[in-house]
């Protein structure tokens, strides 16, 4: 199994030598491995790319999908933009809030699930879109939520 360092070097090879382009794929890889981008992880990425940790943090802080704080084992993101909202996205979000016992933007007490309300996910025709660990569930209704919560938390 390749180390994070090796994976990052493989990303660097895809881009011209004098570019910093690998920083975004490197941060994604690091987050996939560690769950979130702690100061230590940012330092590890910076070392692999020959840049400063501050540079890595300046990039990570710009993008919604990169996390500078711990998240749960699973990430549930409910689109609440117009096309999802008009068919009940807020009810879906509230069903997750009550099922998980936490508000949007928080992690459930058992640390299993982080819930977020997010902007348009580009699936407006299949509303409501819920991204679970970056993979879309389509046509989600509030009624579907208890089963999803059970699937993610093991029925606790």
């Amino acid at each position, binding site marked *: 199994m390749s180390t994070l360092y090796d994976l990052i070097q493989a990303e660097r090879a*895809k*881009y*011209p030598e*004098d*570019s*910093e*382009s*690998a*920083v*975004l*794929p490197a*941060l*994604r890889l690091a987050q996939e491995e560690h769950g979130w981008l702690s100061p230590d992880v940012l330092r590890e990425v910076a070392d692999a790319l020959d840049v400063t940790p501050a540079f890595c943090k*300046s*990039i990570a802080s*710009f*993008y*919604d*999908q*990169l996390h500078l704080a711990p998240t749960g084992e699973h990430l549930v993101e409910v689109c*609440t*933009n*117009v*096309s999802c*909202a*008009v*068919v*009940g996205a*807020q*009810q879906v979000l*509230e069903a997750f809030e009550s099922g998980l016992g936490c508000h949007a933007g928080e992690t459930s007490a058992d640390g299993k699930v982080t819930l977020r309300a997010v*902007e*348009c*996910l*580009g*699936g*407006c*025709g*299949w*509303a409501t879109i819920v*991204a679970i660990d*970056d*993979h*879309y569930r389509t046509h989600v209704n509030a009624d579907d939520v208890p089963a999803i919560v059970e699937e993610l938390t093991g029925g606790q």
Partner: protein
Amino acid sequence: MASSVEPIVLGGADDRDLTKLTDYEAAGGYAALAKARAMTPEAVTEELLTSELRGRGGAFFATGRKWSFVPSKDQIPKPHYLVVNADESEPGSFKDNEILSRVPHRFIEGCLITAHAIDSKHVFVYIRGEYSGPYEILVGALEQLRSRREILGDVTIVVHRGAGAYICGEETALLASLNGFRGQPSAKPPFPAVSGAFERPTLLNNVETIATIPAILRRGPEDYKALGTEQSGGTHVMSISGHILRPGNYEMPMSRTMRHLIEDLAGGVPGGRALKAVIPGGASSPILGPEALDILCAPEALAAAGSMAGSAGVMVIDDTTCIVQLALRTAAFYAHESCGKCTPCREGTRWITDTLQRIEEGIAAPAEIDLVLEICDNVEGKCLCPLGDACAMPVRSMIKRFREEFDQHVELGYCPLHETSSLSSLYPQPRSLLPLATVSPS
């Protein structure tokens, strides 16, 4: 997918699994690439110019002309780059999602034809980070080509994933992000054709534009052009969502009306409710009333009606919906996505949102409606990129088209449509409507 004419971009995907190379080739795939490679780059560009294909990212700039701006290797030495904008993020638009998911090989074929036309060996596809599904399908399709080197030839295609930033759909921000920086726009010039990816000459095209190119080569440019209107040839994949019976993507010639899309193809407004408004080109496009039904889905027709075709994301709004809430939700999106570089956009989108929130809550003074319009004027056209415009244009149009609703909120001191509006769940009962005892002092 349903349509009254043979689809070009999504064609064949209902009958076969076109994510598989064998199926795509059996349906005539990669024949247009062979045809293009037998032609000179100049001859391929000439075909595009004749087809009058216009960019499907929303600007509708002539694709052949854009290609011709890329300098030759005699003017600026190689390498030159092709960058494809797959950062589809405009609320209401989800066509590129379906194109990449269902016809990835047609998209790749378009990339390779375009690379040949501008004599480039390097293609970067910038795909929004949230599109894990389409990303995996696209990478899978590229994987299938590993054993078929003659298709890729000496061209490399790198799929570069974003990480959640609407602004990266703007070309200079996309290039900044691809180059490894925060995705913030920059002033033009230099234009990407001169200094783009890695500060080299770069052509940027949208996913649908690229996926249309094989059909133009295969059918011939005249035949393609004849499908649309005189000014806007060919077909367009329209995304339709909101209060609509059969939401989805529909590929149709631009010579058809909104009525054809909304009523014939997508089944109209469900539940016996009436059509109140149409947002024809993604959240940033000015709102139209029911008169939109008789307008053609072509950019010039929508522009003449005071809106725009934009990213072809049609959002249908029924008569229960509060337009103040709609304006507020739209403005809140742009306030969230403003990159913060230009002051009028960073501050203006926030002030527009906050003031609309006060109007929705019924606590705004009458003058605050005009104040929103004034802020819109102070944002639009004052920044490096159109994100601020994308907030100001729809909000201004909603106030102008539905002014009486905004006035009512202020006069009554509450939202008159709160009981029925499908967006009310986002905006809890205004404080002014709650019994006094439950209002906590703030």
